[in-house]
């Protein structure tokens, strides 16, 4: 089994004239997990990866693979497999010959070429010219190239581009499997939603600077969460909350309570004899957290603080975070809503979000549905972030 290596960026800076495409990037990518390398277009992801792979020379700083620069690797393709763009092919060459060219350069047998074509599902078109390939097939061929040397490190730049949903599902499983085998897997993307189900570790960069380094759960913080509570008799519910001195905001969909957890609110309602129509723990939209990090609205301790303790954010309320992040079956919406009104209630919210982010995927959570899955399933009830959008609608 090939061994994974630690990838290390140390104060990597790349200037193109006066513009710094990468600005003092220091980060570490560990083996055994899939690490997402995220940032908007132009953030410096591709340049960083090209510096790591020795294709672009850093203005200053150093990027290494297991302590060595790419050019110093004795067997580069057997150590690192990298796919950077979906168009690095001579259109007149067949898929198998394309791979043979590089297999020869790395001293890899032709048998391995057939093997990797099978692995990525291209065995049937091995003899066809790449010029006739769809974007998805080219992505798969690019992936086959990365696997040629059975490397311990995989570096993939936007690998999901052009893949159909089936291909994306296949890619996710494939990457997770590679990571489980102990390999280092670094996958770049400009969309958090695209990778949030696959990655367990994250690097987020913006304008060439690192804005987040840590795991998925650490991305959100305990006070990002709120409880939504609603009852057919809102006046009674409001009175009960007032009586307990619990601050709340009233929205069209119910009350947002920041401090109290769902169990306590349920108990208050029960003792006041109020039938609830909704009781739900809700996290922030990860995509919005991502955007806030990227545009600087939110500064994470993993890069802002002197002490590099990316998981500290979760220590204060580990149970809340794991619960909140765990709802693959979409039970959050169903569980507290015996009258079935919740989905209908929420549907208009997501479509009517005034900031035009209907695809925002928060972490809807239920206190009753803890699970170990690291990320929410996008098929569960979609809701926008609880604060800004709904306040404007009030």
């Amino acid at each position, binding site marked *: 089994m090939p061994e994974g290596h630690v990838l290390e960026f140390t104060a990597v800076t790349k200037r193109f004239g006066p513009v710094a495409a990468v600005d003092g990037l220091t980060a570490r990518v560990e083996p055994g997990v899939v690490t997402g390398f995220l940032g908007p277009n132009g953030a410096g992801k591709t340049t960083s990866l090209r510096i790591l*792979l020795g294709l672009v020379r850093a203005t200053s700083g150093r990027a290494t693979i297991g302590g060595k620069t790419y050019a110093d690797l004795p067997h580069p393709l057997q150590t690192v497999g990298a796919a950077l763009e979906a168009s690095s092919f001579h259109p007149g*060459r067949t898929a198998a010959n394309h791979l043979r060219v590089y297999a020869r350069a790395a001293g890899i047998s032709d048998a391995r070429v057939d093997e990797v074509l099978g692995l990525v599902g291209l065995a049937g078109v091995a003899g066809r010219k790449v010029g006739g390939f769809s974007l998805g097939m080219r992505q798969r061929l690019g992936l086959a190239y990365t696997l040629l040397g059975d490397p311990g490190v995989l570096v993939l730049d936007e690998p999901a581009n052009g893949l159909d949903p089936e291909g994306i599902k296949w890619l996710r499983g494939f990457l997770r499997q590679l990571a489980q085998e102990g390999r280092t897997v670094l996958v770049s993307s400009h969309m958090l939603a695209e990778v949030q189900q696959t990655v367990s570790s994250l690097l987020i960069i913006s304008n060439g600077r690192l804005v987040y380094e840590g795991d998925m759960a650490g991305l959100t913080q305990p006070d990002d969460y709120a409880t939504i509570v609603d009852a057919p008799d809102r006046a009674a519910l409001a009175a009960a909350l007032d009586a307990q001195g619990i601050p709340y905001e009233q929205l069209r969909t119910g009350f947002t309570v920041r401090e109290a957890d769902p169990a306590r609110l349920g108990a208050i309602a029960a003792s006041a004899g109020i039938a609830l129509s909704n009781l739900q723990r809700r996290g922030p939209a990860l995509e919005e957290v991502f955007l806030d990090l990227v545009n600087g609205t939110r500064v994470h301790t993993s890069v802002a603080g002197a002490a590099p303790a990316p998981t500290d954010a979760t220590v204060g309320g580990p149970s809340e975070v794991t619960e909140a992040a765990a709802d693959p079956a979409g039970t959050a919406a169903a569980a507290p809503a015996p009258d079935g009104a919740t989905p209908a209630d929420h549907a208009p919210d997501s479509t009517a979000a005034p900031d035009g982010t209907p695809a925002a995927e928060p972490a809807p959570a239920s206190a009753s549905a803890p699970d170990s899955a690291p990320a929410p399933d996008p098929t569960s009830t979609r809701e926008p972030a609880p604060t800004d959008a709904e306040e404007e609608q009030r």
Partner: protein
Amino acid sequence: MSLVRATRSELTKQFTTSIWWVLAIVLFLYVGTSAAGIAGAFAALASGSLPADATNGPVIPAETLPPFVYSIATAVGYVFPLLIGSLVVTGEFRHKTLTPTFLATPRRGVALSGKVVAGVVMGLLYAAIAIIAAVGAGAALLAVFGIDTRLGDSATWALMGRMVIALVLWVLIGIGVGTLIRNQVAAVVGLLAFTQFVEPILRTIGAVAEGIAPITKYLPGAASDALVGASIYSSLGAAGAGGSTLEWWVGGLLLLGYAAVFLLLGWLFSWRRDVS
């Protein structure tokens, strides 16, 4: 050995697309028909089958006719290895395959050396095709007119050896130019324009105008002809401006110099650049 692997990779690149055999076939037909046509015409004149006053051009004596005909392989065919050489590099830029190439062979010097060694192999292959075409068609036509083909002469074989060297060097010049001029269309058009129009015109003028002859003999095509030692220009044009060609070995070194200079410039200003 990473250079051996890089060379094998480059040769695999060459033989897995169709351009190499398309150019090989065109080279064979072009050189073959040129050699046959020229051999036929001049053999008819030299042997007296065609009266000498049927033309106002020069008559080449039967003894010097065979090398003249055989050297068509370089005089006409040199542009093919030159193009192949430029495509070896510009194809990588055009199809963005430099990324996987440098990932597989991260040391740029090794990658370029692999191309040079593979270029030598391609040069040998094209030299074989060009010489077979020129000597095959030319000798056949000479024999038809009863002129000694001189295929038994060691001088003829030495000529062929010098042609092989010339054609290999042309591939290397092509690689150098292709490294320097990354745009494939610009490189190919530039090479065709220079070799097919600019240099022939300069050399034709040089053959009649005393003033620029000392300069034109240093042009790459002239250096190639000097190395080979027989060609249309040296047999016809330059014969008038006697003594204006270089020694064969000087021509060879000059041609090698052109290849080295272009490769060096390409290495310095293009090959080591960032790949993005």
